């Protein structure tokens, strides 16, 4: 308690935090895009597409994230051909001048897939809830004006749906940051993994987990601030633009 962490261990925690952030940003972007598609699919006129989309939500929302992560890392890996696994488990890098792109480790890849699939189901449901929050009368009115399904979605339903869905969506992004800690079970070297590693090497339990907690609280606070700023400025600007 009397001594603080050595810089080396602090660097480990920072590295873990960068991993957590990178993982969350990638997952957040992909889950938002695919969640959007999922919401559209659930309201599609084709019964087959709508049913497939609701089956997806049923499967991914009704099973624990930890089990899903273990499935992607251990289960799916066992089904893939062994030369694919060898490729996925060896480092690959592409360089363009000063920029080097590295293919992520399989742990990170599986963690990203698992988190994305799980978060997509929740984000999709928030989008759908937003769309259902727009009165059906508006849809009929748009149809009466001669708008097609796409034009109705684009200009009538979605701008309002997005505004309704924004606060619960921010909640889902906060959950995403916290859920990302579960990827430590499959060996992703993110913040929780690193804090545990620092704890076992230094026995400074309070410092290790204290700093990790502070990092988590900080990143969630940033999401909250972003939500407030968006609600004050962004969504109004969006409304004005569409009106």
């Amino acid at each position, binding site marked *: 308690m009397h001594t603080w962490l050595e810089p080396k261990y602090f660097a480990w925690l920072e590295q873990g935090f960068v991993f957590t952030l990178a993982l969350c940003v990638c997952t957040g972007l992909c889950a938002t895009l695919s969640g959007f598609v999922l919401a559209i699919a659930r309201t599609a006129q084709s019964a087959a597409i709508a049913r497939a989309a609701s089956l997806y939500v049923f499967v991914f929302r009704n099973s624990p994230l930890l089990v899903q992560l273990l499935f992607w890392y*251990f289960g799916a*890996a*066992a089904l893939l051909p062994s030369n694919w696994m*060898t490729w996925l*488990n060896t480092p690959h890098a592409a360089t363009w001048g000063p920029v080097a792109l590295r293919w992520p480790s399989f742990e990170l890849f599986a963690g990203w897939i698992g988190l994305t699939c799980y978060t997509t189901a929740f984000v999709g449901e928030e989008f759908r809830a937003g769309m259902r929050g727009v009165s059906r009368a508006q849809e009929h009115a748009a149809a009466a004006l001669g708008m097609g399904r796409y034009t109705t979605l684009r200009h009538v339903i979605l701008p309002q749906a997005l505004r309704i869905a924004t606060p619960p969506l921010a909640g889902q992004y906060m959950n995403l940051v916290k859920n990302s800690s579960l990827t430590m079970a499959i*060996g992703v070297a993110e913040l929780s993994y690193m804090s*545990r590693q620092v704890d076992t090497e230094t026995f400074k339990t309070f410092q290790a987990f204290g700093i990790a907690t502070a990092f988590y609280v900080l990143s969630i606070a940033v999401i909250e601030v972003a939500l407030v700023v968006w609600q004050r400025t962004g969504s109004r600007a969006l409304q004005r633009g569409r009106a």
Partner: protein
Amino acid sequence: MKHRIRGAVLPALLTALLAVASNAAHADRLDDIKKAGVLRVAAFDSNPPFGFVDPKDNQIVGLDVDYARAVAKSLGVKLEVQPTNPANRIAFLKSGKVDLVFANFTITDERKKEVDFSTPYFASGTQFIAKKGTLKSPDQLNSLRIGADKGTTNEQQVRAKYPNATIVAYDDTPFAFAALRTGNVQAITQDGPKLVALLARVPDKANYEIPAFTISNDYEGVGVPKGEARLLDVVNATLTHIEADGEAAQIYDKWFGPKSAAPLPRLFKIGDPQKSS
């Protein structure tokens, strides 16, 4: 492993008191043993295959007991086995309840202050399991992905000695082994005897091997009461002798050989130079 030192402090204090009380500074323990015709030895009763109770006849058997029997034979006396646990080993020796301790007794500097140790007759350390043919020498570790158990000394040793190895830490050994099976890591690390026990339960164990090297070394010796130089000499001479005539290797093979339940290559022979851990 972490608890070894802490566990030794309390018994050491207790026995210090006992030693003062029963300070029977008699002539020589070796003469006493020969006069009584019995060698009293402390061994584990629940740590297979080092020392455990055989369910068939309720006798304590195991690797340690077999080595103890060899010493009793060379003294020409009967063997009497006293069950012990790790915490009691030093206390038993110092209080004179037993003459020798054969109980997977790791030689440490702290313990050397309390008791004397014979030349080591067993060694263990951090080892690896890999798919057959992938891991031959420790140098390769630097270029491999190694699965480890979170928070073990094994994980820390690999990180310290092979900084370029990619270490992926899992919650426990079965997870690490699952990652090895799916090809996410090329090797996993743990203490040799534990890896052996793990491998014994695996259905496709023919595909895996435990490469014949360790990256850390713990040496186990016979605990001898302090100051019994003649007894210590006899124990050392016996150990050297049974290594020379092949009996030591036979005893090892009986418990860890290729046909045993837990095959582990014999990397250390009695009298080999000790590597620093």
